C-alpha cells in the first residue's frame, strides 16, 4: 500500500510488523520521531505483546535491551550521534555476548562543536565494535531493511547486533511515497524469534562470563567468524527479500557502469542518489565513469569492492566522516580492499555536520579527479578559507 510518510514512519511501521517484544528508547534529534511513532502505536495497543519504555538515557536503553535480549526477547531501539556513542560501551558488550539487538542509527555529526545535522561520524566510531552495519540510500530501502536486519541478526549462524544507518534529516524528515509493507509479507519473510539460548530458570546458565587470557582470544575469533558467516546470511536475505517483495536493493554493493569505467565514484547512504545522477549524466556525455554504492559496511564486502574496482584507473570516495590523523574512513577500507591494485586514489569528505552538498560540488570533484586537476589522497570538500586563532 503506497502512502506518503516521513522517513521516521517508514522505520516505525516496519518495526511494528516485525513484532518486537521490547523496545527501549531515548529521544535525540533527528531520531526522536521514530520512537515517538512507536510510542503512539504502543499507546494505541498496536504493538501486540511488546513492552515499550523510555529509558533514562541511551546507555540505559541499550542496557535494557541487553537484559531483554538475553532473556529471549526480540529487541529494537533507535538513536544517533551522542546517543550512539553513549550506547557504545553497551553495544560493543552486546556484540561480544552475541545478542541480536536491532537498531536504527539516523546518522548525525558528533560534538564538538555541537551539531544536530547529518554526516557519518557517529557510526564510524562503532566501526570496530562487532555490530553489523548497513547504509541505506532511501526511505523505502530503510523500510525494507528492518525485517532483513532482524532476520540476519537472529540467524543462529550469526547472532550479532545489527545497525541500520540512515541519514538524519536527509531521509528521516523527508516525506516520500513509501510502499508500506503488509503484515503477511513480513511474516512470510521473518519467523518469530527463536533464541538458540536464553535466560531461564529451567536451565540456569551464566551469561556474560569473564574470560581469562586462555579463553578470551577464542571468543574474539568466534565473533570474527560470525561476521564472516554473516556475509552469506545477509546476501541470502537481500536476495530473498527481493524475491518476496519484488524490490531488489542489490547485494553488499551495487556497481553501476564500472566495467568500462576509468573513474569509479564510491558513496554510502543518501548522497548516492546525487552522485548517481551526476555519473549518469557524465556517461551520457561519453565519459567513462561508474558508480559503486556500498550498502554493507560491516562485514566489509572487500572481495566485492575489489572485484568492482579491478579495472578502474581512478577511484574517488565521497566520505561523510573523517578519521582524524589519517583520512576518510570509507577510503581506508576501499584502499585495503584494493591492496596490490594500482589505481589512482582520491577521497573527499563532504557534507560534514549537515553542510549542504550542492550538485555542482559533486560535478566539480568528479571532473577535477577525471581531468587530473587534484592530487591523489584525502581532501575536504568545499570549506571557507580560515585561519585558526585562540579567541
Amino acid at each position: 500500500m503506497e502512502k506518503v510518510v516521513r522517513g521516521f514512519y517508514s522505520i516505525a511501521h516496519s518495526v511494528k510488523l516485525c513484532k518486537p517484544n521490547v523496545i527501549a528508547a531515548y529521544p535525540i534529534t533527528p531520531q526522536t520521531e521514530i520512537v515517538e511513532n512507536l510510542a503512539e502505536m504502543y499507546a494505541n495497543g498496536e504493538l501486540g505483546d511488546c513492552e515499550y519504555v523510555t529509558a533514562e538515557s541511551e546507555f540505559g536503553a541499550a542496557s535494557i535491551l541487553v537484559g531483554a535480549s538475553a532473556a529471549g526477547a526480540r529487541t529494537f531501539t533507535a538513536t544517533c550521534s551522542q546517543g550512539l556513542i553513549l550506547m557504545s560501551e553497551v553495544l560493543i558488550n552486546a556484540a561480544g555476548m552475541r545478542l541480536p539487538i536491532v537498531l536504527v542509527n539516523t546518522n548525525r555529526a558528533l560534538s564538538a562543536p555541537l551539531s544536530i545535522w547529518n554526516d557519518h561520524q557517529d557510526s564510524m566510531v562503532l566501526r570496530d565494535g562487532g555490530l553489523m552495519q548497513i547504509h541505506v540510500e532511501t526511505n523505502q530501502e530503510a523500510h525494507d531493511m528492518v525485517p532483513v536486519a532482524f532476520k540476519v541478526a537472529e540467524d543462529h549462524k550469526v547472532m550479532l547486533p545489527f545497525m541500520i544507518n540512515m541519514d538524519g534529516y536527509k531521509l528521516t524528515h523527508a516525506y516520500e511515497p513509501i510502499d508500506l509493507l503488509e503484515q503477511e509479507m513480513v511474516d512470510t519473510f521473518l519467523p518469530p524469534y527463536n533464541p538458540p539460548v536464553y535466560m531461564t530458570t529451567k536451565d540456569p546458565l551464566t551469561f556474560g562470563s569473564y574470560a581469562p587470557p586462555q579463553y578470551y582470544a577464542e571468543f574474539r575469533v568466534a565473533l570474527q567468524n560470525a561476521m564472516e558467516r554473516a556475509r552469506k546470511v545477509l546476501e541470502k536475505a537481500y536476495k530473498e527479500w527481493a524475491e518476496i517483495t519484488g524490490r531488489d536493493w542489490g547485494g553488499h554493493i551495487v556497481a553501476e557502469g564500472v566495467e568500462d569505467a576509468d573513474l569509479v565514484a564510491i558513496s554510502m547512504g543518501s548522497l548516492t542518489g546525487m552522485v548517481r545522477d551526476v555519473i549518469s549524466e557524465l556517461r551520457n556525455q561519453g565519459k567513462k565513469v561508474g558508480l559503486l554504492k556500498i550498502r554493507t559496511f560491516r562485514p566489509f564486502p572487500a572481495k566485492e569492492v575489489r572485484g568492482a574496482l579491478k579495472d578502474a584507473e581512478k577511484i574517488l570516495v565521497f566520505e561523510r566522516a573523517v578519521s582524524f590523523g589519517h583520512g576518510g574512513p570509507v577510503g581506508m577500507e576501499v584502499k585495503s580492499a584494493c591492496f596490490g591494485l594500482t589505481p589512482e586514489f582520491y577521497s573527499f569528505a563532504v557534507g560534514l555536520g549537515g553542510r549542504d552538498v550542492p550538485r555542482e560540488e559533486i560535478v566539480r570533484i568528479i571532473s577535477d579527479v577525471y581531468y587530473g586537476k587534484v592530487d591523489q589522497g584525502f581532501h575536504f570538500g568545499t570549506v571557507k578559507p580560515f585561519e585558526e586563532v585562540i579567541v
Partner: protein
Amino acid sequence: MNYFGPGHGACPGCGLTIATRNVLEALEGKCFVANSTGCLEIVSSQYERSAWGVPYIHSLFENAGAVAAGIDLALKALKRKGEGKVVVFAGDGATADIGIGTLSGMFDRNHDVIYICLDNEAYQNTGNQQSGLTPLGSNTTTTPVGELFPGKMGRKKDMVSIAVAHGIPYVATASVAFHADLRRKVKKAAEIEGAKYIQIHSPCVTGWGIDGKQTILSAKLAYETALYPIVEYENGELTRVRKIKERKPVEEYLKIQRRFRHLFKHPKGKEIISMLQKIADENAAKFNLDV
C-alpha cells in the same frame, strides 16, 4: 540450599558471598540475576567456572539496574513472569556512583526488580578505592592517609533516602550479621510488586583489613554502634528498625579494622572519630535506635 558456590574465588571470609547466598536462599533459587562488574562478579563468573545455580547475567559495571529492567520487560512481554523474580546484585560503587543513573531509571519506572546493593564500602574489586558509600575516615587507595588527610573526607552517601525519595514500595538495609532478618526482608520484597532496594552491609576482609573470624563481628559492631542502622521502609514510611540494646562507642567498631586504625594515631584522628560518633548519634536519634 545451594544456589551459589562452592568453588568461587572470593577471599576467605568475604561478606559478599554470605549475603548473596542468603538472598538466593530466601528466593529459593527462583530468580534471574543481573550482576554488575565487581568482586562478586569476578569471583563467581569466570568462563567455565560459574558459581551460580540460577540464571545469571553480567553486562557492565554501571548498568545492572537497566539490564534487570530489560529482563523484567522481556518476562512480561513473553508472559514468563511466573518463572521467577528479577534480582540485581551490585556493589556500592556500581550502585551509588557509576550506576546511579540506570538505578534511578529502574526505580523511576518502578520495574518489578529486587535491587541488592552489596555494600562493602569501597571499590574492592580494583583494590579498595573510595566510593560514595565509603565512610568518613576510611583509608582507601584514593583517599590515603597522609599528613594532611586522615583518610576519606566527607560522609557516606545516603542511598537509603535516595531510594525512598523515588517513591518505590520497599527500601531496607540489612547486614550479614543478621542472616534471618536479611532473608525475611528479601522474602518480603519478593512479595511486593515494583522496585525494591535492599542495601546489605557486607564486610570485605581484604579492604577493611580484618580476619575472616571478624567478618560477622565487624558487621555486628557496625550495627551496635549505630554506624549502620538496620531499617525498613514500606511505601515511604519507616516501618521497622532493629533496636540496639546497649549502644557501643564507635571506637569498638573502628579499632578492629585496618582501614580505620590510623584514626587512633593521626593528629586529626580524634576529630574524625568524634565526627563518626556524631553520625552514629544522629542515626540513633533519627531512627530511634536505642532501647
